[in-house]
């Protein structure tokens, strides 16, 4: 069937049919193929991008590229100063920030509570002791200040409070979780850490789509260190920002070779993702593919109808071609090539719109979902695979009706007999 002569002849016939067909019909078919392409790529891309947005936010604003954290059976990273020195000595490292962490509580309204029987307004939280300059350099955390101001070195007895600990930002209740009422920057709250109570002033409220930020309490590292009595300078987490283009896995492996993994967990931002996130990505991807496949079926039907109508209305001419000795395969190939042309044009337009506009635009203007800033994830490999799928489906959808018409009796076709 696919001899070079048949292909050459099919190309000759297809070129002339496309060139002299109605411009509007051609545009319409290409438009359908374009939307099918977008449906194939964008639906799953947004579903995956919904999670990717959350993953990116955690990477950018919390874990950074590589994170070193305490082992499961340790409360902190042993030999932290030595590890920090190793990290700082690596040429791939752009910046790093070390954090102290401790669980505790924050109490509000304790001054206005009239009697001991009244339930205290206490919220449990993770406390982070940070170097505000280093932290901001690595995680850009200050951009999430929605009220008040960010910390500066020397801000003793001042804290930044995650928005989910503030009742006015936490508009839903769930069992076991309490938020603080009547608080704002300048208001004093009482924090309790390791049995140590201290009255501190709220300097700012942080609201981000990263739970560690929105549910945490941030204070100056030296103060937290003194409260929890961590005089050995051993920290709980070190987030490392790498120079652009550096593979985090490379730095992770260097740190492991330096023995850091003996005293701490060394993970890239991908390693640090919880398993359920990975499962959700796979699930959303599958869901996206299922939805996309409906688009693929619609495209196949569209091409089938277009080619079928085209072939049926041209049945007489197909008969004439056969009558004067044109091989059936050459005629079928001409229809396959027409389908291929429509799918190719739709895909090319789709690629231009996708990578020239849609993807960069959505990266710059993510969709504001409640738990993430959704972006469009369209890796080139996956996109090419989908284009391949679209081509194959379209070619089959173009071939079948052409075959049905071409197989009809030559004379019946010429004379228009059924």
């Amino acid at each position, binding site marked *: 069937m696919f001899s070079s002569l048949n292909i050459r002849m099919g190309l*000759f016939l297809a070129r002339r049919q496309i*060139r*002299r*067909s109605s411009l509007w019909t051609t545009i319409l078919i290409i438009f359908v193929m374009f939307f099918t392409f977008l449906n194939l790529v964008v639906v799953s891309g947004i579903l995956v991008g919904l999670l990717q947005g959350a993953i990116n936010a955690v990477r950018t604003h919390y874990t950074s590229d590589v994170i070193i954290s305490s082992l499961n059976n340790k409360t902190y990273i042993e030999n932290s100063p030595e590890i920090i020195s190793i990290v700082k000595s690596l040429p791939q490292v752009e910046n790093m920030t070390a954090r102290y962490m401790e669980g505790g509580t924050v109490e509000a309204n304790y001054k206005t509570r009239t009697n001991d029987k009244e339930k205290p307004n206490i919220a449990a939280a993770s406390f982070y002791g940070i170097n505000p300059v280093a932290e901001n350099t690595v995680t850009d955390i200050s951009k999430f200040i929605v009220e008040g101001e960010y910390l500066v070195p020397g801000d003793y007895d001042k804290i930044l409070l995650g928005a989910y600990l503030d009742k006015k930002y936490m508009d839903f209740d769930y069992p076991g979780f309490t938020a603080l009422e009547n608080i704002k920057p300048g208001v004093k709250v009482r924090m309790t850490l390791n049995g140590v109570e201290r009255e501190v002033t709220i300097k700012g409220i942080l609201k981000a789509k990263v739970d560690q930020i929105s549910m945490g309490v941030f204070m100056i590292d030296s103060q937290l260190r003194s409260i929890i009595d961590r005089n050995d300078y051993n920290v709980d987490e070190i987030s490392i920002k790498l120079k652009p283009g550096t593979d985090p896995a490379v730095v992770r492996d260097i740190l492991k070779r330096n023995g850091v993994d003996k005293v701490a967990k060394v993970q890239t931002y991908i390693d640090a993702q919880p398993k359920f996130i990975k499962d959700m990505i796979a699930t959303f991807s599958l869901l996206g593919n299922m939805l996309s496949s409906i688009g693929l079926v619609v495209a196949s039907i569209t091409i089938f109808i277009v080619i079928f109508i085209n072939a049926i209305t041209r049945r007489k001419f197909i008969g*004439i071609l056969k009558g*004067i*000795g*044109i091989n059936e395969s050459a005629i079928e190939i001409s229809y396959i090539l027409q389908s291929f042309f429509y799918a190719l044009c739709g895909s090319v337009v789709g690629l231009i719109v996708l990578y020239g506009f849609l993807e960069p635009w959505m990266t710059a203007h993510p969709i504001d979902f409640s738990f993430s800033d959704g972006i469009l994830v369209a890796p080139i490999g996956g996109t090419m695979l989908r284009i391949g799928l679209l081509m194959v489906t379209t070619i089959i959808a173009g071939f079948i009706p052409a075959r049905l018409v071409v197989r009809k009796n*030559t004379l019946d076709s*010429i004379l228009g007999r059924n």
Partner: protein
Amino acid sequence: MIEVKNLKKSFQDGEKTTEVLKGIDFLAKSGEFVAIMGRSGAGKSTLLYQMSLLDEPTSGDIKIDEKDVLALSTAERTSFRLSQLGYVFQDYALLPEMTALENVAIPLLMQNLPEKKAYAKAAEHLTLVGLGERLNNLPSQLSGGEQQRVSIARAIAHEPKILFADEPTANLDNESSRIVMDIFKKLHSEGQTIIMVTHEVEYSKFAERIIHLDNGQITSDERV
């Protein structure tokens, strides 16, 4: 040479069988110009379709240059039509999206002629039928007579052994019909075998032999 023996063709319409050709015996030698005449429904076009391998008879034999063409497969028949036969249809049967030049070049391209040669040969044959100035016109830009001349150019460009023509002047005015018949006459004088169906006595006289068909049988076979 084309030889037809006891050729029968019948059509089934539900329970009813209509016998259109009732045992035709016919022989046309190379270089002959044969006109097949008869009233409407006599079976003349049906006979042409069987001989030109566009249709399959119910029974009988057809041999072209001693070759049993009914034994050929569908693909072999297509190939045979391409290399040995040429057609001129009543309604010209040109492809509307192709220019006159492209219409004529199609069978040549299918014969694997390089594009340049195919177009040159197509142009040469269009010039031969007086359309050297209309090469790049679409069929819709040509008159009926001009379209029929393109059809003739297409039918002869690949130098077929037999040229079949089904009522080639039926849709044309007198002047165009005369031009078309003059082309046939010229082709015949150059040795082309032509088998033409017509109901017009005036144009049947261009042939050297006239066969009359009635009710699916040959009623007369005379030389002009």
